[in-house]
């Protein structure tokens, strides 16, 4: 794309339009869930289990109920009376809303107190007495798979082990043959630890049931309001909640990153309480509850093997994974893909043979796992391939950039059929890596590293050339609980030529109010400043599956373009009527139809809109509206090449990121400023698990870092200055040529950082260090390798 097609005034694609949503946020006028206040509203707080695995012998609520201002204490027994004590997960597993006899992880919801204000509710929580009989927790998935391990899910009839599912894809036999025939095989155990998205706004809701109308309205921190409405209707239909009487509103959302896709017990208890009590009930969890009980991400133990020829040609990839899902499989993957898009693991390389298999297990840890800003397990896949490529380079004595260049899928190979079944839409991997190398001065850095190594100084250069898979997804393969993963746009043009458009997605900071308006401005010529965007209210917005997995631009963005095209088709008929010309003689250019050969005979979109309501051709429906439900023909495949340079302190093991260059390619760009902002944020959420974040449990299943006291998010001091640039390889099948961007950097950054640290230490015999790579881990390497300063 060569510069914007529209003027600054129109503000279509490619313009750095300042964000519309900022006006309220910079004034403190955003409306988040916790800002919702309703007359007579009660507050809910939750009693949580101190044990990871225990029988509940008794729950005594008398003292809590005796506190003035406490209205109710909801237990599993109370919910059982309504058959609401269990709920399905998005992966068709089952989860307790509140337990009747057993707790399965520390901080699990045990009871809820409903009171006049949040302080009294907290007093009530303190006063509820629960008697537990602790049992030995199973925390490690490798222990959970042992033959004599206690069976945790005794609620499942006939269950004799802790195995959840086995999944595999690829050709095992051909892959084995390729491994047998290969000159070189490298193997590595790679663990991606349990982490937490920790959006700065935690989760919560305000549930308000109107007993007279029979209508339930819920303001909720959800990334997928429409899906939630259907789930509530399916789960609570038997207590009289019918889908037309359920309204889910996602107000402003303070960051999501996947953590606001699942249905948590707290939401269900608040809804049930409001229905039972007949008053609005607010529940907002605190940060510690959020870290300790809401869905985690990752927790994949991967055995990665790569086979190659002596000349460096990659021949085969094999990955065997153990996935720890905690107490229940509460991930948020499309139904057909229990391991998400893990099969993107052949990455940016032309590897003809591949096989991957995975086994998931139950343990006594919180359920999950969601994606932490990636498209369903792409981060795990990319970490595996990008780490093992560096291990191969080390083994062959090759430069890791050179080895990548040799094995890249070439620009002329697209559309490319991967060994694990994906059709990559477009890419130019060598161009991105070359640009990254130029920008960072790769050859000079290698020279510097050699000199420093001779002086005993530690410096490393790490590369990651990743391919993402986003935009779920085509209805033939993609659904969640049976609902196909299309998305939608409903567009109305007003008589004065202004517009409103509503979508099935929901921004959590991505800036949809700005970017969707730019797409419509591009397609219609109506200034983006005159197009109002709305999302998140299921009573008004068209049905869609929400915003996660970088799917908004690939699905709803495409729906916007298609809806605009429908508007244009009708506008052509009206213009023909106004110009007394035939439709075939009209041509469109941004914002107007004109008669071919006589451009002065034209009608603007605004004139046409006015006529649609005041002077429409007889026989044509008046008005100017269109709705489009977009079912994508394929996924989109953003990619990029990142290079990280680190310096390591020989005494303390402290790692300093000296430079980080990120070249991203997300196809055509809607708003360059917003794309850059998304990349900055994504890189920082890649830095976070690479160097700081991990949810740590002891053998009893106690969380050891369940608050911001010791779960470390990067601050402004740890975060480096990201150096970003983009190449543009449009998607051939997306109406705008766009691909989605916000998660690429979270996916691509961790292996670049890990590869840089390993590169700095490789001469000591280091092949892999699992993330988060802390100074302590590096210091331990110094001790083990006798390399302490």
């Amino acid at each position, binding site marked *: 794309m060569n510069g914007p097609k529209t003027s600054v005034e129109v503000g279509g694609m490619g313009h750095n339009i*300042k*964000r519309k*949503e*900022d*006006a*309220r*946020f*910079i*004034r*403190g*006028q*955003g*409306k*988040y869930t*916790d*800002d919702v*206040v309703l007359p007579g509203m009660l507050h809910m707080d939750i009693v949580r289990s101190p044990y990871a695995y225990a029988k509940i012998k008794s729950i005594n609520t008398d003292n809590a109920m005796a506190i003035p201002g406490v209205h109710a204490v909801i237990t599993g027994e109370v919910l059982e009376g309504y058959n609401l004590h269990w709920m399905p997960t998005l992966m068709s597993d089952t989860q307790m809303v509140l337990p009747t006899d057993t707790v399965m992880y520390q901080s699990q919801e045990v009871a809820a107190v409903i009171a006049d*204000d*949040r*302080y009294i509710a907290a007093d009530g929580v303190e006063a509820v007495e629960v008697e537990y009989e602790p049992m030995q927790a199973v925390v490690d998935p490798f222990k959970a798979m042992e033959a004599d391990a206690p069976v945790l899910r005794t609620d499942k009839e006939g269950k004799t082990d802790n195995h959840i599912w086995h999944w595999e894809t690829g050709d095992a036999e051909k892959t084995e043959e390729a491994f047998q025939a290969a000159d070189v095989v490298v193997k590595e155990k790679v663990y991606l630890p349990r982490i937490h*998205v*920790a*959006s*700065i*706004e*935690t989760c919560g809701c305000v549930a308000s049931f109107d007993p007279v109308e029979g209508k339930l309205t819920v303001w909720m921190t959800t990334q997928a309001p429409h899906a939630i409405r259907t789930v509530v209707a399916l789960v609570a239909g038997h207590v009289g909640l019918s889908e037309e009487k359920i309204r889910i509103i996602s107000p*402003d*959302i*303070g*960051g999501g*990153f996947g953590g606001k896709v699942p249905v948590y017990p707290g939401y269900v208890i608040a809804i049930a309480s409001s229905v039972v009590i007949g008053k609005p009930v607010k529940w*907002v969890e*605190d*940060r*510690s509850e959020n870290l300790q009980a809401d869905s985690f991400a990752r927790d994949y133990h991967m055995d990665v093997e790569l086979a190659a020829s002596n000349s460096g040609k990659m021949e085969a990839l094999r990955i065997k994974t153990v996935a720890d899902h905690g107490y229940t499989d509460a991930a948020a993957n499309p139904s057909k893909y229990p391991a998400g898009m893990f099969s993107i693991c052949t990455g940016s390389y032309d590897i003809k043979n591949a096989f991957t298999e995975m086994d998931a297990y139950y343990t006594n840890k919180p359920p999950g796992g969601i994606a932490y800003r990636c498209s369903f397990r792409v981060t795990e896949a990319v970490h595996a391939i990008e780490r093992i490529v560096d291990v191969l380079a080390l083994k062959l004595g090759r430069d890791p950039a050179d080895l990548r260049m040799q094995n890249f899928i070439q620009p002329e190979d697209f559309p490319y059929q991967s060994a694990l079944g994906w059709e990559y839409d477009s890419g130019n991997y060598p161009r991105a890596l070359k640009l990254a190398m130029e920008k960072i001065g790769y050859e000079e850095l290698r020279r510097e590293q050699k000199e420093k190594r001779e002086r005993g100084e530690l410096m490393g250069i790490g590369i990651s050339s990743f391919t993402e898979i986003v935009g779920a997804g085509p209805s033939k393969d993609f659904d969640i609980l049976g609902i196909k993963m299309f998305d939608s746009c409903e567009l109305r043009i007003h008589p004065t030529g202004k517009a409103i458009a509503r979508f099935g997605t929901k921004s*959590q*900071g*991505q*800036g949809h109010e700005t970017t969707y308006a730019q797409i419509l401005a591009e397609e219609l010529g109506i200034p983006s400043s005159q197009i109002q965007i709305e999302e998140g209210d299921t009573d008004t917005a068209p049905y869609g599956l929400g915003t996660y997995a970088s799917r908004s631009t690939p699905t709803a963005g495409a729906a916007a373009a298609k809806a605009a095209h429908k508007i244009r088709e009708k506008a052509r008929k009206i213009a023909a009527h106004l110009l007394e010309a035939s439709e075939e003689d009209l041509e469109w250019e941004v914002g107007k139809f004109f008669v071919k050969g006589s451009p002065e005979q034209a009608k603007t979109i605004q004139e046409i809109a006015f006529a649609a309501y005041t002077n429409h051709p007889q026989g044509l429906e008046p008005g100017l509206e269109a709705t489009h439900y977009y079912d994508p023909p394929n996924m989109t495949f953003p990619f990029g090449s990142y290079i990280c340079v680190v310096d390591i302190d020989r005494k303390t093991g402290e790692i300093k990121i000296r430079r980080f260059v990120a070249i991203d390619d997300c196809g055509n760009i809607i708003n360059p*400023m*917003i794309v*850059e*902002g*998304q990349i*900055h*944020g*994504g*890189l*920082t*959420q890649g830095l976070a698990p690479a160097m700081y974040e991990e949810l740590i449990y002891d053998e009893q299943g106690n969380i050891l870092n369940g*608050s*911001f*006291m010791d779960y470390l*998010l990067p*601050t*402004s*001091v740890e*975060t480096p*200055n*990201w150096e970003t640039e983009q190449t543009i390889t449009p998607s051939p099948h997306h109406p705008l040529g766009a691909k989605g961007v916000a998660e690429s950097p979270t996916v691509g950054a961790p292996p670049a950082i890990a590869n840089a640290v390993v590169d700095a230490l490789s001469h000591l015999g280091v092949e892999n260090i699992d993330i988060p790579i802390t100074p302590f881990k590096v210091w331990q390497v110094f001790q083990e390798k006798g390399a302490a300063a």
Partner: protein
Amino acid sequence: MSKHTVTIEINGSSITREVDSRLLLVHFLREELVMTGTHIGCDTSHCGACTVLIDGRSVKSCTLFTMQANGKSLTTIEGMETEGKLHPLQEGFHQEHGLQCGFCTPGMIMRAAELLDKNPNPTEEEIRWGISGNLCRCTGYVNIIKAVQYAAEKIQKEAT
């Protein structure tokens, strides 16, 4: 629960209320006064989403009881725009794309306000350390730093 009468000047207006001893300042602002621009993002005083100014000093309002603010002068995000004119920091966050979800933004702006008051011309390093008590999950801080620099320049220009 014992009650206390507090009088606090908030964004230029004197407000007197009877409050519980244990009522946190952030809840007083958000729930008693329905000034919801001040946010809550943690329970350990780490995230800074609740930052306000008390007598010009930035404080985390989740860490103070309301009665500790008795007799003092408070500024919240709602008080930053004066006579329809945005504070240079508000303008800077908008111009430099220093926000995404907007949840940390009020706290960031209030913290940066004290930083610029004490140090009108901070280096990048000083800004990084200056806002390190406020967490942002969306922006990677790069554009927040630019927003603070934008405001510093604007404030200096207006002063000359």
